[in-house]
């Protein structure tokens, strides 16, 4: 049981950390660019919200499998496939939760508006400097929301991890899948324990987001 919890938390934390880093430039571009490509790209990034997890899992299974051209790049390093491995789960979870990082970040960046960045430029801050010293701190609510949403959403995912993880105990079996197995084996007591725990966790995560968001304060320019 302990190792399932550790694996679930480890997966959610790794996914949240990596995804925040990777989604930030994408969200920044979506918020600031006037390119014709913004909305099509935003739509692709939002697809995981509407796609059945099994569809996503199916394509990932192929993309991370030994005969995929993507994996061919890793063959020289002795990696044949990422299916049924922790890194594979992380990649799958990142794609599955991408919209939950991009949307709040994009919203937070858009809310900053043009003026603070123009002001920073007149104070000799280069665009990169202004990004780190003005945009990031002003968008902190968005980062907090994105981190909590991605973490909680990853803890709650089922279809994708089942498809590409295969639920190998100790390696790729996470809490949501363990419940499924327990119920199949009619071990309702243990299932209750995990289900109740996840319910409490979900409530606390959302509550934390709402209250911490308020404590950080709405930034009025």
């Amino acid at each position, binding site marked *: 049981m302990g190792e399932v919890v550790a694996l679930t938390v480890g997966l959610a934390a790794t996914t949240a950390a990596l995804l925040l880093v990777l989604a930030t430039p994408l969200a920044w571009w979506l918020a600031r660019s006037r390119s014709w490509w913004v909305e099509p790209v935003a739509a692709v990034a939002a697809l995981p919200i509407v796609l059945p997890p099994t569809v996503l899992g199916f394509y990932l299974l192929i993309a991370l499998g030994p005969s995929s051209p993507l994996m061919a790049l890793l063959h020289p390093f002795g990696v044949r496939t990422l299916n049924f491995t922790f890194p594979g789960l992380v990649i799958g979870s990142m794609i599955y939760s991408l919209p939950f990082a991009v949307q709040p970040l994009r919203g937070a960046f858009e809310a900053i508006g043009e*003026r*603070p960045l*123009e*002001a*920073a*430029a*007149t*104070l*000799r*801050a*280069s*665009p990169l*400097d*202004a990004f780190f*010293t*003005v945009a990031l*701190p*002003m968008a902190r609510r968005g980062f907090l929301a994105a981190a909590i949403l991605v973490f909680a959403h990853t803890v709650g995912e089922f279809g994708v991890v089942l498809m590409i993880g295969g639920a190998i105990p100790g390696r790729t079996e996470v809490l949501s899948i363990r419940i499924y197995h327990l119920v199949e084996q009619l071990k309702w007591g243990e299932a209750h324990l995990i289900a109740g725990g996840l319910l409490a966790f979900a409530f606390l995560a959302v509550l934390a987001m709402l209250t911490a968001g308020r404590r950080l304060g709405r*930034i*009025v*320019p």
Partner: protein
Amino acid sequence: MSGVEARFEGRRGGFRLEAAFSAPARGVTALYGPSGSGKTTLLRCIAGLERMEGRLEVKGQVWQDGRRFLPTHRRPIGYVFQEPSLLPHLSVKGNLLYALRRSGGAARVGLEEVVGLLGLEPLLERRPARLSGGERQRVAIGRALLTQPELLLMDEPLAGLHADAKAEILPYLERLHAALDMPVIYVSHDAAEIARLADHLLTIREGRIVASAPMRGAAADPLEAAARDQVARMAPDELRRLALAAVLAGLEAESSATVHDIDGGSDRPGPTS
């Protein structure tokens, strides 16, 4: 040495800017015109916040021509926006230090000097959200000074303020004028402000500079100051007449004054409202 030599040409939506002017290397040059005449756009072009065709030279340095365009953060300017533009996530002190740390080289204007000059001491630890409009603008002016600008650009810094807040800031601006030797371009549509602050007057209308002349009575003797004070208390209509008279007197008396364009008829430069 010349101060600012500028020429810009371009379109924003339905508005066309076609402005050329030169401003002296010292003192306050007021850019005066009715709303919608292109004052702010012109100022933003000088700051590099807006990009139009043209040429811009400041104190012998080319900031923009056919090939070059110095980005805003490389231009030694200070800029005071019309609306409050303090960084909301930093305290007043944080905002001032943000500017000072990036100014590079030796600070000609120090933190203490600015704090003293603008009376910012009691505000230093506060957040911008907890300041009044007048206080915010004072901090914004101080912050602009701490960038050690070679050219200070002010876009109607008093326009959004109540009469009380205006009266509170004007003396600070006058003190700045006396204490600091840096050219200022001051956008305004308020004749009273201009009468108190400006040494040189540029009039802009429908995107074109229509007149450029030194202001009369820029000297700093007490009698003059009293006269200015009186001017500042005049009714707007009276003031407009006076400002016009001043401009026209300047035009007649000064050989250096130029009139680029006065579109004929009874229409005279100045506000029409």
